[in-house]
């Protein structure tokens, strides 16, 4: 399917990442946004609101983030493409209903423009410390898809991608931007609608009384039905069977939970997207995502200039994690360098998937700004020069950390 021309504001804009997210959502056909103001994501909601009359969308500023996410789930079951936009503290507040969304297999998109944390932290500074939370933040077992854009242009494109994945897999998709990308103003090209691939929800077409909301075909993803069309939907956050009925005291094997997880795990290869640069001959690979991948580029150039063979692997989808590719590379290289604006999150995952085959060096950063490329460069040198296999993941001591710990 192509995007609806009425939803696409084709042209070349000079806008920030937040606004690009709003344009992306509208182009993807998002017709419902519920949100609550929070720095640094507010500009996205504002930009969306301004366009609502033109595209027939609804924006409701709810009383809080809990209300927002619940409204989003409801609107999705009413047949709209939906999203909410938030940042760290708001993201923590929506955790309960992320679980509900995953349990009742609802397509929706969550935009998290990450800031410095924990708690109120630094609202106007960048952070990447909610990455593990996007995967593990709600109780119980579930799987989600997480994307990380590194520029306003990608913020636009990935938002569309997020909607497509949400609709294809009936799953919550998180777009984990960060304050830098959200507030960075760059050129964003919005192509004509005919060039934008948009996926729409698969609706059930059979007999109304034979519809089971969680009954899967071969593809693991059950088709949806809208509320109010005579299906008599019974949707519950309790663990349920194909019909949607709670199983409570019955055998867990009847539950559809496992299938709702497998639809992501077994399709991981199709979902995962990476961007690799000069990885083939690399001795060291820098694994990064979001704004950090742009800073890493500078460090990579510095290293290449000194003759070090460095490649870059950028995570477009952070979850599901590209387990296989990391394992493959780990056998060939001298080390991974993982810069993140946190004290180690995705680095642990890289470490896990390396199976002790190579060194993994985390370049930590507390947040509020981006890395100094010198630090990443330092970690690359450390990886090349390492004489032995480290017993565990090591953290590169950045200049700022040295200064603080004395």
């Amino acid at each position, binding site marked *: 399917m192509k995007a609806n021309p009425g939803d696409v504001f084709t042209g070349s804009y000079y806008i920030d990442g937040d606004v690009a997210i709003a344009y992306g959502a509208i182009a993807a056909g998002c017709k419902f946004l519920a949100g*609550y*103001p*929070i*720095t640094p994501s*507010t500009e996205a*909601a*504002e930009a969306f*609101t*301004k366009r609502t*009359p033109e595209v027939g969308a609804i*924006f409701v*500023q709810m*009383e*809080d*983030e809990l209300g927002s996410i619940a409204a989003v789930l409801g609107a999705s079951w009413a047949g709209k493409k939906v999203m909410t936009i938030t940042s760290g*503290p708001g993201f923590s507040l929506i955790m309960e209903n992320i679980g509900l969304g995953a349990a009742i297999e609802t397509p929706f998109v969550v935009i998290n423009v990450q800031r410095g944390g924990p*708690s*109120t932290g630094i609202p106007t500074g960048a952070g990447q410390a909610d990455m593990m939370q996007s995967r593990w933040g709600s109780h119980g077992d579930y799987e989600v898809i997480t994307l990380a854009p590194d520029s306003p242009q990608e913020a636009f494109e990935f938002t569309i991608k997020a909607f497509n994945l949400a609709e294809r897999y009936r799953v919550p998709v998180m777009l984990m931007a960060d304050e830098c990308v959200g507030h960075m103003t760059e050129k964003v090209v919005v192509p004509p609608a005919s060039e934008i691939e948009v996926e729409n929800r698969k609706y059930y077409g059979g007999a109304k009384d034979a519809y089971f909301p969680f009954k899967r075909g071969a593809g693991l993803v059950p088709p949806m039905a809208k509320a109010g069309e005579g299906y008599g939907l019974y949707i519950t956050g309790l663990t349920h069977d194909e019909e949607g009925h709670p199983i409570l005291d019955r055998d867990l094997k009847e539950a559809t939970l496992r299938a709702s997880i497998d639809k992501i795990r077994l399709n991981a290869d199709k979902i995962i997207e990476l961007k690799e640069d000069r990885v083939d001959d690399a001795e060291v690979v820098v694994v990064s995502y979001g704004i950090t991948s742009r800073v890493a580029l500078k460090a990579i150039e510095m290293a290449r200039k000194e003759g070090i063979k460095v490649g870059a692997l950028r995570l477009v989808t952070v979850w599901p994690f590209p387990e296989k590719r990391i394992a493959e590379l780990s056998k060939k290289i001298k080390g991974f360098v993982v810069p993140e604006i946190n004290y180690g999150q995705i680095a642990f995952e890289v470490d896990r998937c390396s199976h002790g085959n190579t060194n993994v060096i985390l370049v930590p950063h507390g947040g509020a700004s981006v890395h100094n490329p010198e630090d990443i460069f330092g970690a690359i040198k450390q990886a090349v020069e390492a004489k032995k296999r480290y017993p565990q993941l090591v953290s590169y001591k950045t200049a700022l950390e040295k200064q603080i710990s004395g």
Partner: protein
Amino acid sequence: MAMAEKGKVEEKHPMEQLLRMDRMPHIWCPGCGIGISVTAFVSALKKLEFDLNKMCVVSGIGCTGRVAGYIKLDSFHTTHGRAIPFATGIKMANPDLKVVVFSGDGDLVSIGGNHFIHAARRNIDITVILVNNFIYAMTGGQVAPTTPETAYTTTSPFGNFETPANIPQLAEAAGAVYVARWTALHVRRLEKSIVEAINKPGFSLVEIVAPCSMYYSRINRLGAGIDMMRFYHENSIIKHDEPTENLAVGYQKQIIVGKFIDRERPGFIESNRRWSAEAKG
């Protein structure tokens, strides 16, 4: 010159003993009404007859949420919407303390709306000072639960169509024992109300209608803070004991101020003690 410099340092504002002067200048914009709310609060504190070491201030998030950081008492800057439950915990755990919640309209009646209702219902002995500037100012001017109908904000770019909350009515319905509203212009009366509210056992609320000179006024072209103060001067009317159902605030319409509720109701701790005593026999 040196003399003059020295003289400058020695100049001490009479409120300084109750302010964190090492945090000044504060973050509020020129013409903002939160600063006046703070001066009224500090003047009220000076009139109170108990040990201020036994008082603490809890704020949530937002422009008014920063108040806790400037008052030199034990003070807590907590999460968005949760100042009231945080204060409830303090008060329950140590009933000897006086606890004041100082926060904004979005913080207390939108995201914190549920806690506002339940603290009033339980009649927890805390004082809530609520600065109502009709907008989310900290995040740049989004529509608030108090934004009057037709007013513009960044998320109601075509004019607000939602019915705003009538805060005194909400407080009364939920069970508050003291409810007053003043504008930032009525500083002396405000000060007096704050003293009364703090001295009143139970859940007391003082709403302060205050100018947001940066976002609300700019988006709606209402001029500077002083222009909004002039508007209050001309359009506010004191009506004590006015039924709270009449207290909705329209866009640039008359604002009724005064003391509306002053009643007695058993408080949470009192009831709790009575019930425990009875239960034990």
